[in-house]
């Protein structure tokens, strides 16, 4: 879908960074919806492009979705936008229908909660060797977060039930980061959240996910690079 010929008045451009899980949320949603778009890799470690600075002046971050030149920022706002601006796109909507406000509320709650995996995981690898107490806290937090997600998933195929929905799209990009978090935090996702581990394997079989996510080894290399950049032992 990326790179297909588009009409200028409906043109979609995604400003993104290869390893960004927030950008991957958008890539997966665009693929699920069969929407053509131009992928624009941004150099975040060097000088940010004028286009990025103009499109997201407040945060200067990716992802940014440009639709006919107008920027939409914040990954979860982009996902909602794709549902709402392209109601005739392929596949079911990411969010449950307006006829079920309670299901919508649950989806929004858990999609926002999924960010906690990344927040707690990031704390784990950013800690220096001597910070034992902080490490135990970060480990406890990520284990709790994964346990809560495991319980919410339950025996369902996806968080969206039969639908690969908002929460699934929001959470799945963090999956390749989990092996690194497991190593830094000395825990096991299989033990802590076995249903979530099985869900991750099911999601990996979807084309949109397989094509958007990078292997854990690549993510781990990136974390090692960032640790050097931040001067963390």
């Amino acid at each position: 879908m990326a790179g297909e010929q588009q009409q200028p008045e409906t043109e979609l451009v995604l400003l993104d960074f290869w390893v960004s899980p927030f950008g991957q949320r958008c890539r997966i949603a665009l693929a699920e919806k069969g929407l053509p778009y131009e992928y624009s890799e941004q150099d975040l470690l060097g000088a940010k492009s004028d286009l990025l600075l103009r499109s997201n002046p407040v945060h200067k971050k990716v992802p940014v979705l440009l639709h006919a030149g107008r920027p939409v920022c914040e990954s979860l706002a982009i996902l909602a936008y794709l549902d709402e601006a392209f109601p005739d796109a392929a596949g079911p909507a990411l969010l449950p229908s307006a006829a079920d406000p309670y299901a919508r509320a649950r989806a929004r709650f858990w999609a926002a909660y999924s960010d906690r995996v990344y927040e707690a995981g990031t704390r784990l690898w950013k800690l220096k060797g001597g910070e034992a107490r902080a490490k135990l806290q970060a480990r406890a937090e990520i284990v709790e977060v994964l346990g809560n997600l495991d319980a919410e998933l339950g025996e369902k195929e996806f968080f969206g039930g039969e639908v690969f929905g908002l929460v699934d799209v929001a959470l799945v990009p963090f999956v390749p980061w989990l092996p690194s978090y497991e190593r830094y935090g000395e825990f096991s996702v299989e033990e802590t959240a076995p249903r979530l581990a099985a869900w991750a394997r099911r999601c990996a079989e979807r084309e949109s996910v397989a094509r958007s996510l990078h292997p854990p080894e690549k993510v781990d290399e990136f974390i090692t690079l960032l640790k050097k950049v931040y001067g963390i032992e």
Partner: protein
Amino acid sequence: MTQPRDGGEVGELKLLGLWSSPFVTRAKLALQIKGLSYEYVEEDLSNKSELLLSSNPVHKAVPVLIHDGKPVCESSVIVQYIDDAFAGTGASFLPADPYNRAVARFWAAFLEDKLVKSWGRVFSTKADEERAEAMRETIAAAGVLESGLKECSGGQGPFFGGDSVGYVDVLLGGMVSWIKAAEPLSGAKIIDAATTPLLAAWMGRICELDAAKAVLPDVDAVVEYARGVQARVAAAAAEN
């Protein structure tokens, strides 16, 4: 029991809250604007009720809105839920156009991730210099939010929702008593007619709303409550 204008069934609404919480006030404001009746339950957060713990097992926090026995948690999710579940009742908080909705969601996220987060550190941080830095960040965030108000309202009115109260108005509106408490507590204003004129005008208009008058906690009471929180944080720090 107040009926919504379309005459449909409202069902049973219960709000678990804390009088001083700006997040709870957001939920109250949304319910009040929509003219919805609800049972309010004041929680003692040092002794949380079974209902709270079972309704919000993940965060164990208020507000929780329970509608016909089903709990909705997180203030921004609650406000959107009220908008969705009572869509026939009064104006929607979110605009109809998908792009404008995305802009509103962007500024709602900014409010939470920047302004509210820094502000929270003002109360939870023990070190004076860190607290001052958190306050500076909060004031800077308000400055950026001023441009957000300009973008969202599009010159159509004093609110983020233009001439009607919208999603961001409700989220920021719930915090007004705390915004006013900033000056007595820290000596600095978060919203100031000199540096954030649109937000200052916004605050004046919000406070004129009957719904706001009905739900905003008394500023002096909030100041006293906040001083209590800061004293407890300082005492805990002194013990360590």
